């Protein structure tokens, strides 16, 4: 027991952790809140954006395309600066609209920027998934006389859901990783607290602790997601056996790119 504790103390600086450990945990809490809220709202926003993109109305589809290009083609950090510092510039306007209380807080600025960003990515994922359902399925469903709602509910969505599941999981991991940017605009999230502790102690290992926490978080999600995917695709056992590499970008399954499913993502 003593040796175990000695070994543990050798790898982890117990003094550092007992003094600043709660800061890391509090930072993790804020990271989780920011990620949860922006991913949730982003998911809800993504569906109408995706439908607009697929609509036959040229204005709608082009507006949606512009939105996607804008938010996927520029760095998230730039978008975050635009919201955070740009909000400060138009403060009188925001005050008169009663929105200043919102833009004053780095917390809400981060949520706004992350939400808009992830909505663009999630919309693309949904579009890829919906378009991956073959036309024959729709024709067959229509030939059976199913109503529009029933076709969506019983034919399209179940199949699209399976296709979207993995990229959506990647997007969640992506947002967790991107949320570290919040630290740059002074939000005390996990990364922000890490920087604070480093500034206090000049102890480099605090970055490694933060890395381990992030790693535990993303690895857990990855595993949970694999389990979910397995559970929902039991009826497609062959598909589950398709090696991981075949689904990776550049693998044999070229449809992944054509359908707009982005496999590795980051901002």
């Amino acid at each position, binding site marked *: 027991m003593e040796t175990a504790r000695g070994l543990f103390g050798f790898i982890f600086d117990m003094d550092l952790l007992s003094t600043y450990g709660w800061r890391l945990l509090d930072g993790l809490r804020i990271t989780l809140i920011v990620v949860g809220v922006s991913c949730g709202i982003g998911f809800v926003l993504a569906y109408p954006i995706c439908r607009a993109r697929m609509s036959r109305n040229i204005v709608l589809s082009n507006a949606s395309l512009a939105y996607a*290009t*804008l938010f*996927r*083609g*520029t*760095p*998230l*950090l*730039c*978008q975050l*600066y*635009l919201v955070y*510092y*740009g909000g*400060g*510039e*138009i403060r009188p306007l925001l005050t008169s609209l009663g929105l200043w209380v919102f833009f004053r807080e780095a917390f809400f600025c981060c949520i706004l920027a992350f939400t808009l960003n992830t909505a663009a990515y999630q919309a693309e994922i949904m579009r890829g998934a919906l378009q991956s359902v073959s036309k024959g399925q729709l024709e067959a469903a229509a030939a059976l006389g199913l109503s529009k709602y029933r076709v969506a509910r019983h034919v399209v969505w179940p199949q699209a859901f399976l296709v979207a599941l993995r990229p959506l999981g990647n997007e969640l*991991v992506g947002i*967790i*990783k*991107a*949320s*570290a*940017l919040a*630290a*740059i605009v002074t939000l005390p999230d996990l*990364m922000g607290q*890490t920087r604070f502790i480093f500034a206090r102690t000049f102890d*480099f290992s605090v*970055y*490694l602790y*933060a*890395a381990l926490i*992030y*790693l535990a978080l*993303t*690895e857990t999600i990855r595993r949970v997601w694999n389990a979910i995917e397995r559970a929902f695709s039991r009826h497609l056992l062959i598909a589950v056996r398709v*090696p991981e*590499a*075949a689904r*990776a*970008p*550049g*693998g*044999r399954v*070229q449809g992944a*790119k054509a359908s707009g499913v*982005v*496999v*590795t*993502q*980051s*901002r």
Partner: protein
Amino acid sequence: MHSFNLLFGPNGWAGLLLQGAVVTLLLALATVPVGFGAGLALAVMKSSRSRAVRAFCDTYTTFFRGIPDLLALFIVYFGLQALLDRLGRLISPDLHLELNAFLAGVIALGAVTAAYSSEVWIGALQAVPPGQKEAALSLGLDRRRVFFLVLLPQLVRIALPGLGNVWTILLKDTSLISTLAVMDLLRAAAEASRNTTEPILFYSAAASVYLVFSIVSGLVQARLERRANRGYA
């Protein structure tokens, strides 16, 4: 008119932004051989016979893909500086080695890009039929030629779409370097907006330059893919 003057007037900031844009582009371009090359090496080493080598590669990619890019850059950047500092003091007590910020940025971005691109390379390695290697070996080519003359050209073709994705990530990740000490496009915009208190103008300008970069990248990528796929109609 006011905005126009702020950008292109006699004391306009367009020059600084342009310099920043060049630095951003150079940073990304300089990282490509480092990151993609190391990624390919990682991918090849993942099928090594040595268990230790495989374990190292797996740990490396899991680590760098699982933590925020910003944190990864910090770790490599500050870790590298600390290491050099220690090395310098080992040689002589008052020798202060310092790494050029741009170079440190390239190494840090390269470390992250290597992890992302190794996944792409692995997919490509598995997609080239094993018969290609066997046929090349039976023709009497040595291992180096088999790899560079037979396998690599096919790998590149298959990996191109995925590498294109990684390139877009890399292009945007260069903006994170602005939080360190490199005067890239985003830092130039930050500098300009601090001095003029007009952040909306300058960050929008920076965003549009990034947008142009991504759109041009997309076009170039489509061209490269068409070229690589000629003969595979």
